[in-house]
């Protein structure tokens, strides 16, 4: 069997099913023996120690976020502000940060709490559910719609578009039948571009509507916002919306899945938070650290730089392995144990430096509310016997998480 990581070659596979399910041993091996490795297949440098990841995150002039062309996510221009660098990025963040502050996000607690309960109402009495499809996917999408002020009836439309970009093969499997290698890649790219166009079109319509009629929502605020006396252009608004859609849905879905899968398999810790919801904020932080659902962020190297004797070349697409940084024992006491009452937790699950996740306060709030409501209503649950949760690589969405509880557990 292929070794992962292959320390003799200095290589790691980040798109391996076992790595997605349980990445921590791979992280530890990289951190200890190969702090800068190469991704198998692409040869791209992979940086895994906390100090090095942090340094890269704080030096956008060397580790640039302008990766839109390399990643080809169906966009026609860079997403704002994720795929642009300071100083332009700073202007956009000044504008956007107040709409995503912790205080502002508290306004969304009641609708998200109501939505979490409405979802649970649908399956609580069944004694079991496939968690991803029925809870982890719809909840963040519904939060996104509330935040932007879009109708709830657009939920399925958005989920389809998001999959069309992130997992084109999942959204239209029939189109990929019999394709391999370059043809498969080309089909993926084509579907991404098609979904991308639909996203642009949809938001064009919303921009027209909010230009004509002001409402109390984020779309209206974006349409009428100004930076240094100038309104955002239509393209700038579209590039912001594209980011909110792509970054705001899958990430929270993945985190909900990782958290609940962990808790289903660790009954003692699950019971501790069910008995004392006051532990939930600490549990959310600790599981962000331990699970790090967004395992890595990409950066393009702007000038040759050497890290721990490894030479990175201008133009390299580097991977900053946030998950590995988060279990670096140089910065976390008992880094490889999960402690919901950890005193010091400086994890970088939301990144750090100027690109610290714009939605981090929204994500934390969604995760806390979801964990509170879930454990209030379904305090005891397990993975259905004989089944294994299935994780996707990259963003660790738990694509298949069959849970059971109550009478469902014994049937």
């Amino acid at each position, binding site marked *: 069997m292929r070794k992962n990581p292959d320390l003799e070659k200095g290589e790691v596979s980040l798109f391996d099913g076992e790595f997605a399910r349980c990445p921590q041993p791979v992280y530890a091996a990289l951190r200890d023996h190969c702090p800068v490795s190469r991704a198998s297949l692409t040869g791209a440098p992979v940086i895994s120690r906390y100090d090095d990841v942090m340094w890269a995150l704080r030096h956008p002039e060397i580790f640039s976020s302008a990766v839109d062309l390399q990643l080809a996510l169906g966009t026609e221009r860079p997403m704002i502000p994720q795929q642009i660098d300071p100083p332009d990025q700073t202007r956009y963040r000044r504008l956007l*940060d107040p709409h995503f502050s912790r205080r502002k996000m508290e306004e969304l607690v009641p609708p998200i709490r109501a939505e979490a309960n409405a979802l649970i109402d649908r399956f609580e009495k069944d004694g079991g559910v496939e968690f991803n499809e029925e809870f982890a996917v719809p909840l963040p999408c519904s939060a996104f719609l509330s935040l932007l002020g879009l109708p709830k009836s657009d939920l399925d439309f958005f989920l389809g578009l998001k999959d069309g970009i992130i997992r084109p093969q999942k959204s239209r499997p029939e189109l990929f039948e019999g394709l391999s290698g370059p043809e498969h890649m080309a089909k993926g790219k084509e579907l991404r571009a098609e979904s991308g166009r639909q996203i642009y079109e949809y938001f064009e319509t919303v921009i027209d509507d909010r230009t004509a009629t002001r409402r109390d929502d984020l779309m209206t605020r974006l349409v009428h916002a100004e930076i240094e006396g100038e309104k955002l252009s239509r393209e700038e608004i579209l590039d912001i919306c594209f980011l909110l859609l792509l970054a705001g849905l899958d990430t929270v879905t993945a985190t909900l899945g990782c958290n609940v899968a962990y808790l289903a398999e660790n009954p003692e810790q699950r019971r501790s938070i069910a008995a004392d919801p006051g532990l939930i904020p600490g549990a959310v932080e600790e599981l962000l650290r331990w699970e790090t659902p967004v395992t890595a962020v990409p950066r393009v190297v702007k000038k040759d730089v050497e890290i721990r004797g490894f030479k990175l070349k201008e133009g390299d697409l580097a991977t900053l392995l946030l998950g590995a940084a988060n279990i670096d024992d140089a910065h976390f006491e008992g880094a490889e144990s999960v402690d919901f009452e950890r005193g010091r937790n400086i994890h970088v699950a939301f990144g750090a430096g100027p690109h610290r996740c714009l939605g981090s306060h929204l994500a934390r709030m969604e995760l806390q509310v979801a964990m509170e409501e879930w454990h209030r209503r379904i305090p005891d649950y397990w993975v259905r016997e004989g089944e294994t949760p299935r994780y996707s690589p990259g963003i660790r969405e738990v694509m298949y998480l069959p849970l059971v509880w109550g009478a469902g557990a014994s049937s």
Partner: protein
Amino acid sequence: MKLRVDLAKCVGHGRCYVLAPDLFDEDDRGYCVLRHEQVPPDQVDQARLGEENCPEGAISIQED
């Protein structure tokens, strides 16, 4: 004991004002604002908690 915040380093993680709300507040962007520089004796633990949980190392403590 005195608290200092280096606003050139703060990027709005918001850990300080969540963990130690008596000492730290947020501005409209969600960046750190000190409620008071001088740490009351009964809030020394909170001050240390806020300081050690800043991922950017933007908060420092000056002992008397």
